[in-house]
């Protein structure tokens, strides 16, 4: 039982324990309010406030990369995972391209719709393909040269994602190829929206 009275001015005149409990309760309410705002702030906003700085570029991890062949053209990485993406955000990651030819060759690096996707991922929309820019997308590489080209995915404010999980391909083609059958190597970008 809490003993308390009020005076004519409406001021609380409870004992010390009751006042302490009220203060502690208020502080708890403030704390709960701050925590709830902090936890819900990122999720409750339909279009979250974007970061000022784009994410990346991130270095390509090489510690577990086995030795690539010198005389065969290759790309790295095999796939890129982008998590918690949203309209207004930018994700950057370099694609490493190696010219396995003994002569200089032009490698065409483009973003394109996937031919097929990983399970649970939807195709990128044609619009989303235009959200990607690639530096040095058509650059001559010297014989056996390896070079990083920055891939930047920027989803415009207010744009609608193709799906909650969607995929695009970064295509690399050696334009010096001739003949009926030619090869193309692609990195999958797997994007998961927040």
């Amino acid at each position, binding site marked *: 039982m809490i003993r308390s009275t*009020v*005076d*004519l*001015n*409406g001021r609380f005149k409870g004992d010390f324990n009751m006042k302490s409990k009220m203060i502690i309760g208020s502080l708890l309410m*403030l704390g709960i*309010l*701050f925590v709830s*705002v*902090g*936890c819900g*702030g*990122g999720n409750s*906003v339909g279009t*979250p*406030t974007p*970061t000022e700085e784009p*994410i*990346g570029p*991130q270095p*390509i991890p*090489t510690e577990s*990369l*086995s030795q*690539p062949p010198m005389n*065969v053209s*290759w*790309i*790295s*990485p*095999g*796939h*890129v*995972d*982008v*998590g*918690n993406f949203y309209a207004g955000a930018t994700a950057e*990651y370099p694609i*490493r391209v190696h010219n*396995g030819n003994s002569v200089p060759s032009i490698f065409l690096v483009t973003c394109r*719709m996937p*031919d*097929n996707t*990983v*399970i*649970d991922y939807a195709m990128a929309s044609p619009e989303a393909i235009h959200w990607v820019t690639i530096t040095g997308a058509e650059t001559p590489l010297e014989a056996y040269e390896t070079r990083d080209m920055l891939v930047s995915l920027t989803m415009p404010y207010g744009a609608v994602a193709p799906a909650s999980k969607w995929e695009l391909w970064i*295509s690399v083609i050696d334009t010096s*190829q*001739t*003949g*009926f*059958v*030619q*090869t*193309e*190597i*692609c*990195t*999958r970008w797997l994007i998961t929206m*927040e």
Partner: protein
Amino acid sequence: MRLTGKEVSKMKTRRIGMLFGLLAVFGLLAGLLSPAIALAATSADVTITGTPTYIAITGTDTWTINLGTNGDGKMDIATTYYSNPLGCNLSPSDPVVDGECKFTVTNASSNVPLTLTVNIANFTGGDAMANSNSGAGGVGTYGAYVYSTGMTYSSGKVVAKATGSAALTTNFTGATLKWGITISTQTDEWTSPTAETTTATITATEYIAP
């Protein structure tokens, strides 16, 4: 001290006023703090990771379809041609064997399984047949399939579209894969004597298990 009903009512009104005031302060604080907190949470949320793998394939090749059914060295209309080294008019077996595959793709990737896909573009020059994307030839269009060794050709061959073909093979970890193409020409008469050409592109991507 005993309070009259009026005094109690007045006191309750003040307490309610104080409560609303307190809530207003809380609301103001929340409004001031939420953008900063949301910004911090969002900037920390976006994640980007790449796999330490590389993808490399080789396998350029040529194929000239010139074995007309009448032996004149030209392509006939409404005819199916196989890139079968045993004969352009011979359908591969069930299952397909290496000797029935003209092309070889070599996997020089790191220890990563691959998905291989083949797209065949529209022809250019001459009648410029477009890919029907159905596997069958039609008026002004050609159809194409791809197959690989070990496949049950009759039921397993894959339609080769101009873009967006299904995979020829998935979870491929071998060093090489023998494969071939079937092309069915357009059903209407040629209108041009000029040769037409196209390109088949075999694409390698990392296979990611579901």
